[in-house]
């Protein structure tokens, strides 16, 4: 049976992951597709997966009273969507909805959490990779807050 393993193996996020770990990850992967407007997850729901976006664009939104839904970040081709599955209490902090038809590989977070508990090397490898994503998100958020394109006379 064909698996998603070759696609995962080629993705920079899984670069240098040991073969046995790649097998474990591929065992938790499935293809998913979202139509434009579909919600992928909503704030407060249990976070039990993350997504490797293959095509399309996803908006990360936050509802702000008086302003409605505010788009704070978009995730596109080749990027990873979601890391709340890895951090207790495993709940989404934002809404995510597809801005256009989006194809992705969904990675089952419960499956990966269980495998990581049994194989801490895998857990470390995943944590290392997600730490980079968290750091980049933090850097980007800081730059956004700085409002660098504004003229600060």
């Amino acid at each position, binding site marked *: 049976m064909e698996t998603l393993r070759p696609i995962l193996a080629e993705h920079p996020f899984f670069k240098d992951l040991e073969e046995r770990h790649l097998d474990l990850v591929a065992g938790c992967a499935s293809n998913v597709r979202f139509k434009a407007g579909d919600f992928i997850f909503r704030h407060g729901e249990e976070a039990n997966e993350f997504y490797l976006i293959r095509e399309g664009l996803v908006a990360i939104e936050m509802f702000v009273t008086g302003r409605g839904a505010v788009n704070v970040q978009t995730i596109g081709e080749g990027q990873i969507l979601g890391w709340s599955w890895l951090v207790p209490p495993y709940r989404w902090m934002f809404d995510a909805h597809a801005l*256009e038809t989006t194809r992705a590989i969904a990675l089952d977070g419960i499956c990966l959490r269980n495998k990581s508990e049994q194989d801490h090397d895998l857990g470390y490898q995943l944590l290392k990779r997600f730490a980079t994503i968290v750091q980049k998100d933090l850097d980007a958020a800081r*730059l956004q807050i700085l409002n660098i*394109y504004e003229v600060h006379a």
Partner: protein
Amino acid sequence: MIEAAKPDAMTPVFCRVLKTHQETRDTFTIDLEPPSGPQVLPFAPGQFNMLYVFGVGEVPISVSGDPRRTHTLVHTVREVGAVTQAMRRLKRGEVLGVRGPFGSSWPVEQAVGKDVVIVAGGIGLAPLRPAIYSILAHRQEYGRVVLLYGTRTPEDILFRKELERWRARLDLSVHVTVDRALASWRGSVGVVTTIIPRAHFDSNNALAMICGPEAMMSFTVLELENRGVGLEHIYVSTERNMKCAIGFCGHCQLGPKFICKDGPVFPYDRIRQFFEIREI
């Protein structure tokens, strides 16, 4: 590179305003008619002029028009002070003093045969626009050409119609992102560095041109470096308080460099150390 006319570099020539066009809430483009005859003002992409509103003052503004169209001088200006506000109020037929062009230019010739990555932040798109025109005029001489543009909000997007035309081209990859947007915005949200990983280009054979706020340029350089682009292939346009524009007054000095004369465009590896010094 086209050298500035040295003997009369401090003497403005008189240009008539052809039209002004509001680009965004605080940014406008002004088209000028250069004096006819030998005094046409050819420029290279990335160079700037000193624009003098009589009785108010003089400001350095990059040329944002097409270098091949020397009959009209185009500048895109953000209203930030008395001179630019007065410039915005100028009517068709009124006269502006122009000195220049000054400074170094984007390395469009060195980029021949390479993929070109153009990264613009905010009004930084204006000084890059002449480089884009030049590259598109000789499109077959370049590999993949990618334009990454970040700005504050969808309402702050410069040259919106032109960006849409460029985006429709099959030989130019255009990515626009904004820092913040309401849910009605269907495009990318996030600082410009976040869209660099999505861009397709050959890092081993790419030349990058960056213009925007220094914080944006610093983070962009890091991201390009992550992608494997050599620092010697990354060019940035710096901005300082240019006054004389010919390296006399020292107002624009950055370490040992005079931005007006040695810059504003530098290979990043030659200016890197000054980027890392606070408040220089």
